[in-house]
């Protein structure tokens, strides 16, 4: 599944890894204090997705897709239809998702993925 190794999306991957580790660390602390486990788990998923993207693996995109879906489900579970409650939980993850989508549809990736 290694795809277009010449140009893996390094910037996106780095952002995912950075924020993934941040969420993993702070989210781990939050969970240890008896708070939500979401951020720890999402941090692991995001960092893993970033590592896969760094290596040029399409699995990274799929993993992010699954993470996004679970995030949206979690967000609705936690705050229901409250738009302002959904904003921090869904907006930026969705924008990152678009980035991922575009990655997977970008020319280099589709060619290499065949």
């Amino acid at each position: 599944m290694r795809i277009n190794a010449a140009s893996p999306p390094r910037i996106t991957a780095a952002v995912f890894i950075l924020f993934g580790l941040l969420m993993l660390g702070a989210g781990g602390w939050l969970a240890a204090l008896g708070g939500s486990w979401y951020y720890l788990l999402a941090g692991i998923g995001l960092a893993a997705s970033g590592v896969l993207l760094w290596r040029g693996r399409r699995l990274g995109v799929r993993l992010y897709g699954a993470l996004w879906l679970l995030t949206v489900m979690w967000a609705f579970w936690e705050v229901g239809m409250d738009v302002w409650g959904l904003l921090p939980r869904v907006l930026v993850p969705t924008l990152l998702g678009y980035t991922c989508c575009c990655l997977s549809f970008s020319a280099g990736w589709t060619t290499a993925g065949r």
Partner: protein
Amino acid sequence: MSSRRYFWVPLYGVALVAALVAYKPSEPAARGLPELMAGFTGTAEDGQDWRYYGGTPAGDRWSPLGQITPSNVDKLQLAWSFRTGDLPREGENSHGYEFNVEVTPLKVGNSLFICTPHREVIALDAVTGAQRWRFTPQNDTSNNAYLACRGVAYYQAPAGTPCPQRIISTTADARLFALDANTGALCEGFGDHGFVNLRAHLGDVPKGFHFITSPPLVAKGKLLLGGWIYDGQKTNEPSGAVRAFDPVSGELLWAWDVGRPEEAIQRPAADEQFTPGTPNAWGVYTADIEHGLVYLPTGNAVPDYYGAKRRPFDERYSSSVVAVDIDTGAPRWSFQTLHHDLWDMDVPIGPSLLDIPGPGGEPIPALVQTTKRGELFVLNRLTGEPIVPVEERPAPHGGLPNDPTAPTQPYSVGLPSFAPPKVREKDAWGITPVDQLLCRLDFKRLNYQGAFTPFSLEGKTLVYPAFDGVIDWHGASVDPQRQRLYANLSYIPFTAQVTPREQAEADGVVEPWNGVGQPPRPKEFAVNPQYGTPYVVTVEPWLGVLGAPCKAPPWGQLASIDLKTRQLVWQRDVGTTRDMGLFKTHFNLPLSTGIFNIGGNLNTASGLVFMGATADDYIRAFEAGSGRELWRQRLPAGGQATPMTYQGADGRQYVVIAAGGHGGLGTRAGDYIMAYALPKASQ
């Protein structure tokens, strides 16, 4: 790699954000007000004038005028505007120190009277907004933590008195003065060539430690005032004594000193000293002239955040509404809204007075006391007995060493409460999952057991509601004919960090002070040095790393309660994040989150509620029966003042609001007075 994503990603992003901006909760369906009950016609005022800060001495902020109605309010347009020329000077609007335009004009005859933060008094033509005169006092404002003037007072002297129509105001360095309402000249016979020194009898008054931000109340031929004492600075601050002056001569008639509370001191001798460190009543007073009672909203005894040194009389009268006999100054009754107040839950404005129907439909003389807590107390205004039951409920235990909290606190159990629900972890907010996560983590680490959590040396405490209130110095408005109440609500949690003095000094947060001379002023207003106590307390809004509030919206609302049925009629979010310079968060997108607000509302017999107040720079009109927004107009600066209305000599009804911003809220500063009316042709 394709360049297409550089096109699509931002486009999707913009579309998502645009959808958020477009999102507005649906407006409530139109609904009128109920018919009037027999025997409840409200005041006898014709509505042409607005002679008191709150419209009348009752503080109802209600007008009988009916030219502007729910069906034509959308045609309201700017009739005139006036610029006072008084703007913040260097350093006056930074580091938490505030320049606030909070004035509500008075209208008497054909003039409007206003005061500015630097205490200029200006008379305007009520129809054209043209300046008639201006009085500029010489003020020492060099150590004033904030600059604000909520309004002036009007006094009509007995016939034959020189200076028969008087405008009474105060300087920013605690002097009371009287001006001729027609010319703006000082009334020579008042005090010493027009001025009375309000520092007299107060002992040592360091610079900036005592001034008056609210207009004196004119009632039964007296000027009543207390004044603001610099919160949180030291023990033994200047006395909070409430004083009554002769509006003709400026003579001090009586002083109610909480240290000697049973009777007022009559015509205090020159060497008389009032008790230092007592609770002060800095908000606007209200009065029942017929029954001869003035209602004093008292603050807590300074310093605000440590109560171990408070004396029994301080404890008795802190954070209360106290009814005092206007003639003698003797207290008749008092009602405490919070016991052993360690959170700066001052009662910030006198109650609104109105009659509400008793069980048999007969009018009961009542008052509604709004609080920073968001709890509304409805009392018999002659006896102080609750009309709506008040229940003592257990409160969080604990407290700093030697300063235990009160075991219970009073709750108004028969009326909807505007007190915010207890914050949960999932209420923590942010713009992104990361800053939200950090707020959640912060929440888990904060000392918090709900409202009135005692401060701790172990870590920061979440204070919510906090000193900015749910309802601050502007109170609510009431409709005396229909017994409805309208209140705008603001929801800002704060955190409090307690630091032992030695450590705070070592950290450079406060300077050491030996108790002699002028206490050093903290660099940041957020720091309460509390000299004379073991602790320094820093109180700051609870914000995330991106500067966004750590607590989810709504941040601002408007609500109506029917005081007859004691039911909530409606409650809605008000305001957007547009212009939000709040605590340096300029994200400036108009999201309909409801926004922080300071400044009150006005209601009219025709069924409208007007308010500015919100941190977005708008004035809005709502249908009183439903809360439906009917009109809004952009203001040139923050409208953190209560609007008023009157009828001009030209027969038009004007709605006027000051727009000059609020330093604490971080809204745009300015110097505008804005007047709105229907187009001439449509009348």
